[in-house]
């Protein structure tokens, strides 16, 4: 009996590597201490009421951001483990099998569980405030999106200690990801982790499209929206069209693995090439989904810190929307080497290059916004200044990759690795960091320490170039991605060593950021104005942190940068725009449905991973029942009384 249990456990839990045991201990200790603190300080009720069941977009945004920073830590650790393994030839720090798992989880986590939630966090924080709304269009759905993402991410991360991690690369190309070559449960964790969080992403996309189209303050025409809001609209529309492809593709892969179908298998008429096409039909737009909001963030920051109107607003809008459309017809540039023939390759090469046009135009827009401005280099602007050269170089190497006949020499080499890290770190990560610094006072009501922020910025920037510039050369020297070791005879040692040093410098940058946050919490440099950067858009017209109902009275918008124009009018001796009298505010009530339903999804996913139908089927029933029960709930909203609004506004020193 005891032997049976031991047998089962050694297959069920991941064993055999001291690194894993260390992580196990850390996970158990962290969990126990969190549970202890919550119980000891009697915080369970607070946690439940204020966070877990909340439908407030600002709190959901904060939860997204916290989760994504945790994932950034995990993904970053993966990266440093890989760089350590590659620091010199013939290293035996990681076994090939372990290395394969680490690059797989690094990719999945960084794109789907770090970049996406950080992006959704910023959507949630900023969009309703920028358009003068009280919440998103579907607040409960928003909470459900978050919890589905969270449960998906947890399910995926669970594979680290239970069952084994996926190891077929971040896009899990078949036939390698099929049962025939990959019989373990890791690939099923991959499928279900992404599926569950993917449903959440799709719903967020829909939610923000509706929010932006239907919930804008009176007077805010589409062409008067802040540029970040425009970029969120472009990104969300792309999500709506792209994510269903991902869901279907992974569902087909799961049917192959679970029911023995032959969509992508080698035998039985399956075709792995179909998967590669389908996954990139989602995968390429996905890249633009994450970069477009970064473009929006930079646009808002540049005009704020240059104290100047954004140059070429219409060009910018046109560029954003055209990128989101053209991004759907470029997917085959990820596999020019598949032998599709010269005509197909030429088409996808040119369509890819076309995207470079609106992207290049944006850079000029930012530059001419700075031209004849008055630029102050606070941390958000600093990240923007770091972004421009980095992204231009990354964009140009992207154009080089798009030259199909030359790509035969770049494909799957470190040249490609360097390129996409340059646009994803230099573009997406720098953009979201900039956004995080920019909106931080609005989220929490205090500023982050500028001096530590500058340290973090320089460490990240220098680390980035030290890490990735050598990789371009390594790629041209013939180093292919996903090699777990290389020999002394390759001549790759020096550049790999430099690259690893750069990776650790970026790691130090992350630590400084963590320190910066802790230090700033202690220092508590309160933002009493609500407008610490002399902002231009509506979110800066209210107190920091934003009150639960956002705006005491509905703002009425006249201009593109309405808050800036209002400040100008007052400075010129004009009167502030008259505000209507306070009235009770209609708000959504908290709901426990999202967490319950997402927990059922988690259990169902776990059941399907281990082929435990006794768990999966009841859990799926649980999902259906929660959905049914929720649809009979009528007690969904309430009114905030005028007295409470007055009290909240007075506490922030605002007369109403």
């Amino acid at each position, binding site marked *: 009996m005891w032997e049976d249990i031991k047998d089962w456990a050694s297959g069920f839990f991941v064993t055999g590597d001291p690194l894993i045991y260390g992580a196990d201990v850390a996970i158990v200790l962290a969990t126990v201490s969190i549970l202890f603190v919550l119980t000891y300080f009697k915080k369970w009720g607070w946690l439940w009421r204020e966070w877990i069941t909340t439908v407030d977009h600002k709190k959901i945004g904060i939860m997204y951001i916290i989760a994504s920073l945790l994932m950034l830590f995990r993904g970053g650790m993966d990266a440093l483990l890989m760089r350590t393994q590659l620091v010199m030839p013939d290293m035996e720090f990681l076994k090939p099998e372990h290395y394969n798992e680490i690059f797989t989880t690094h990719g999945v986590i960084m794109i789907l569980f770090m970049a996406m939630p950080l992006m959704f966090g910023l959507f949630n924080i900023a969009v309703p405030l920028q358009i003068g709304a009280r919440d998103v269009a579907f607040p409960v759905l928003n909470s459900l999106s978050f919890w589905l993402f969270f449960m998906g991410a947890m399910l995926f991360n669970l594979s680290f200690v239970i069952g084994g991690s996926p190891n077929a690369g971040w896009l899990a190309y078949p036939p390698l990801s099929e*049962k025939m070559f990959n019989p373990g449960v890791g690939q099923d964790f991959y499928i279900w982790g992404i599926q569950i969080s993917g449903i959440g992403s799709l719903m967020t996309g829909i939610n923000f499209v509706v929010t932006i189209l239907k919930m804008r303050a009176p007077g805010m025409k589409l062409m008067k929206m802040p540029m970040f809001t425009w970029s969120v609209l472009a990104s969300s529309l792309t999500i709506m069209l792209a994510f269903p492809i991902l869901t279907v593709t992974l569902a087909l892969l799961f049917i192959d693995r679970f029911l023995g179908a032959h969509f992508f298998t080698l035998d039985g008429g399956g075709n792995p090439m179909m998967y590669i096409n389908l996954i990139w039909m989602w995968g390429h737009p996905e890249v633009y989904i994450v970069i477009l909001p970064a473009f929006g963030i930079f646009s808002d920051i540049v005009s704020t810190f240059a104290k100047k109107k954004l140059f070429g607003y219409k060009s910018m809008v046109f560029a954003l929307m055209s990128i989101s459309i053209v991004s759907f017809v470029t997917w085959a540039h990820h596999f020019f080497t*598949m032998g599709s023939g010269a*005509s197909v390759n*030429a088409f996808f090469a040119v369509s890819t290059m076309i995207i470079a046009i609106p992207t290049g135009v944006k850079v000029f827009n930012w530059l001419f916004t700075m031209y004849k401005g*008055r630029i102050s280099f606070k941390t958000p602007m600093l990240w923007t200044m770091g972004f421009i050269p980095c992204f231009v170089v990354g964009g140009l190497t992207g154009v080089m990759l798009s030259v199909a006949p030359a790509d035969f020499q770049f494909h799957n080499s470190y040249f490609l690795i360097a390129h996409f890290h340059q646009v994803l770190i230099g573009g997406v990560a720098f953009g979201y960091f900039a956004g995080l610094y920019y909106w931080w006072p609005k989220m929490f009501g205090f500023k982050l320490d500028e001096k530590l922020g500058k340290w973090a910025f320089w460490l990240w920037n220098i680390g980035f170039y030290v890490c990735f510039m050598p990789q371009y050369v390594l790629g041209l020297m013939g180093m292919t991605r996903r090699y777990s070791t290389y020999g002394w005879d390759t*001549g790759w040692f020096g550049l790999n060593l430099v690259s690893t040093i750069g990776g650790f410098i970026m790691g130090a940058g992350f630590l400084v950021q963590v320190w910066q946050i802790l230090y700033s919490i202690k220092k508590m440099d309160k933002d009493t104005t609500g407008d610490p950067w002399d902002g231009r858009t509506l979110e800066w017209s209210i107190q920091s942190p934003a009150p639960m109902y956002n705006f005491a009275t509905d703002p009425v918008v006249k201009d593109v940068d309405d808050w800036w124009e209002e400040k100008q009018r007052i400075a010129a001796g004009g009167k502030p725009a008259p505000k209507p009298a306070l009235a009770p505010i209609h708000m959504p009530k908290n709901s426990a449905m999202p967490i319950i339903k997402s927990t059922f999804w988690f259990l169902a996913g776990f059941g399907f991973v281990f082929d435990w139908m006794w768990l999966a089927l009841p859990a799926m029933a649980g999902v259906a029942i929660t959905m049914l029960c929720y649809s009979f709930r009528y007690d969904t909203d309430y009114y905030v009384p005028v007295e409470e609004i007055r009290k909240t506004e007075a506490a922030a020193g605002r007369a109403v």
Partner: protein
Amino acid sequence: MKLRGWGRLVAAIPLLAIVFLMSGCSTDMGVLDPKGIVADQQFDLIMITIVISIIILVPVLGMAFYFAWKYREANKANVEYKPNWSHSTKIEAWMWGIPILIIVVLGAITVAYSYKLEPSKALAAESEQGVKPITIEVTSLDWKWLFTYPEQGIATVNYVRFPEDVPVEFKLTSDAPMNSFWIPQLGGQIYTMSGMAMELNLMASEIGQYQGRGANFSGEHFGKMEFIAEATSQGDFDKWVSDIKQSSPALTEQGYDELAEPGIVETNDTYSSFPEGLFDRIVSKYGSSHNHSEGSEGETSSEATSSESGADK
């Protein structure tokens, strides 16, 4: 034309930096040190794109740093500040026009080269008259490369040899998860995929040993999927073939099945012969199952494959 010379000069800077970094070591510089007719043209194309990129990069970076410096808040000099200036038709026409123009030029070059360097295009026209191309069949296995020479009747593992200045027609497939066949110094890569025979034409213009790599992740020991491609004189090649014919063992059906088992090989084995039509059988064992409905032949072979995968479970 002035710009071109300038652009070339600027393009040389990163290359000089690379040469500096690498100086002193006789390193295989891969793509940057082409030794074949295809790699030569790809190298040229890469250089063209680098020059174009630098023509864009320098002014953009210059503008970024100049504007940031000149219009900084702390600048006490009397610089212009125009908070409401946000549109100029002239500037916007330029900033759309220049990228469009560059992409038109680059697009035209790309389309032309796409046809010129199509990997399945034979290189007969580029070689000297009367030189007969050599065909080599490549099969990627878990985790090794099998080369079969249908004309010479020999087979090798993780080592491929061919004469210099002779067009080589590689026919490629896979009996394992897909991989990618890449000899950076001779030319770009192509996927090896089961169920289909891909084609890649290369030609070495110099005698030498070239690193070959698997470039598409294919599982646990993917890192061991390196091979050596060696170009020799025709005489050395013929001698090598006849040596193998005399001294090496034959590759039997059973031998192939053992070789195809997942695992790594330490020695670069050679074989004096291989089963007739081995490559075509590897291709068709997966490929034929695509046409279930086309008569009994397809049916039987797909049955054969499914029983095989059954054995895997």
